[in-house]
């Protein structure tokens, strides 16, 4: 009996060394990343929904509301950095929902009961979703070009803008990952996402100049991270002073990572 039981054990139970463990953390993260991207590509609806919503916003604000909104210069150039930041933030709905689903279906239990790297599920999720986000951002930039948007500050700042949007999205992704794991129910996660992401992105400089808002709202809009990030993106895309809003953006983003990454990790460890 014992002999049978032992020959059935395919894995050695001995503790692997540190180097092996680091290697596993990387390969496990890549495996999870690959899995998530595979799921994403397998369901065209995901791509369509993540892209169609921002495209509709582009068209709506460019051709419907845009004429009534007065900004210095062309409105479409004002609009696009805001839409891109919002697209990045909204893309993280998918992060929260996917994690909540995996939690509910027991996928996370299965993975946590396996001898894989504990960090890989979250890391792979963040890597895959950041990739997904970048693709979406590039598509929206293309759509922006089709409706008249132009970068007017050179190639390097344009790339920096896309990069900043992606890092911003990744920070929001950490918050979404935490909410997905902490709430653990798909519908609630979706509803909760609307509650915090809508105000955060709309009560900013994304669509209208903040000076047109009532004073009490300006106080919020002027001092929240989404505004700093969008102002920086705008300066990178169109020219103008970058530094003042850039450092505030970076401090905010660092703060979000420092707070929400550990929270998400903790929620994963205690999942279920």
């Amino acid at each position: 009996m014992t002999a049978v039981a032992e020959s059935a054990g395919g894995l050695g139970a001995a503790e692997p060394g540190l180097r092996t463990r680091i290697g596993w953390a990387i390969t496990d993260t890549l495996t999870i990343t690959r899995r998530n991207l595979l799921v994403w590509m397998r369901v065209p609806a995901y791509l369509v929904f993540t892209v169609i919503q921002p495209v509709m916003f582009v068209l709506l604000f460019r051709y419907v509301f845009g004429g009534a909104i007065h900004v210095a210069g062309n409105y479409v150039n004002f609009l696009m950095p805001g839409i891109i930041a919002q697209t990045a933030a909204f893309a993280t709905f998918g992060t929260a929902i996917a994690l909540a689903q995996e939690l509910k279906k027991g996928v996370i239990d299965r993975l946590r009961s396996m001898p894989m790297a504990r960090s890989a599920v979250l890391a792979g999720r963040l890597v895959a979703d950041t990739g997904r986000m970048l693709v979406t951002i590039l598509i929206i930039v293309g759509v922006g070009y089709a409706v008249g948007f132009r970068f007017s500050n050179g190639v390097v700042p344009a790339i920096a803008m896309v990069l900043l949007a992606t890092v911003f999205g990744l920070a929001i992704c950490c918050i979404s990952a935490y909410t997905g794991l902490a709430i653990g129910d798909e519908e609630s996660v979706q509803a909760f996402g609307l509650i915090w992401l809508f105000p955060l992105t709309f009560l900013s400089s994304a669509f209208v100049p903040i000076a047109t808002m009532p004073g009490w709202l300006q106080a919020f809009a002027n001092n929240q991270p989404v505004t700093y990030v969008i102002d920086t993106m705008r300066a990178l895309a169109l020219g103008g002073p970058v530094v003042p809003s850039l450092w505030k953006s970076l401090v905010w983003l660092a703060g979000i990572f420092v707070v929400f990454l550990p929270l998400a990790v903790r929620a994963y460890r205690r999942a279920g």
Partner: protein
Amino acid sequence: MSQVNGVEQPAILVEGLTKSFGEVRALRGIDLSVPHGTVLGVLGPNGAGKTTAVRILTTLLRPDGGRAEVEGYDVVRDAAAVRRTIGLSGQSAAIQEELTGRENLEIIGRLYHLSWPRARSRATELLEQFGLSDAADRAAKNYSGGMQRRLDLAASLVGQPRVLFLDEPTTGLDPRSRLGMWDIIRSLAAGGTTLLLTTQYLDEADELADEIVVIDHGLVIAAGTAEELKGRVGGDVVEFAVPDRRRIADAVVAVTKMGEGEPHADQETGVIYVGVGGRGSDALIEAVRSLDAANIETHDLRLRRPSLDDVFLALTGHAAEEEEDQPSGRRRGLRNRRRGQADARVAS
């Protein structure tokens, strides 16, 4: 590993395990010992603490007190070693529905750090073993419920675990898929894998387990083989319904002397049942005669095997139904399997 000073250690050892969720004491000091290569059936209603015990043993949850070892490794201190030894198949199919069956198993293989070729061949082996070869390259969301559960079980075997935990492996399956799952579980046990399976069904534990423990309110209330437990219930059960509610008391009197233990009568539905030990069909004939002699009309007179409800009633004096103090949303009522809550003991 299994030998310490020449003494065989059990594959699973649990001593005084406790766990509370806030006010709810899910486990109140559980002891288990599962020898290598055997199957332990953990029987109990929803909320009894079965899933909590499995989650602790599979390192998903930390116990509050007591100790638990799998293959000699402590589930808290040596959690990583435990994870290299076990497989887990939970209550729902923990698979990625958008991916194919093959992709699901290959990914799990990679996460067990098998090489790509090995992960591929292992996936092919398991798909074949579980009768999923034809569906291997279809998205798992198009699988039937039974196929999804088989895929889930296959996933738990990718790492060739020595100890396998199955949490209610047939809950929600249709009868045919259930029998298919039983065959698979039997063949795993025959292959020498140590198994711990939880179930709400006495017949399932009876079919599959070498030893059964019955859990209620976080405590082990009985342990033994299926035969021993059924013996405590009084073996088979004669059951019938009396359409005329006024004759229930007479019917109870008519079958009292043939029963082992008192008959149970449900005053609302008119259903009466009584344990008859090993006398089976003889007792059935006797029941027909004495009810006929008393001129009582009956419906659905039959002989059946004892259910979890009967075991619970015999062991605890309360029905399996009465668990409502569950910590999370894992409760699925036994209500549909039961005839009603108004079971009452009728004194004679």
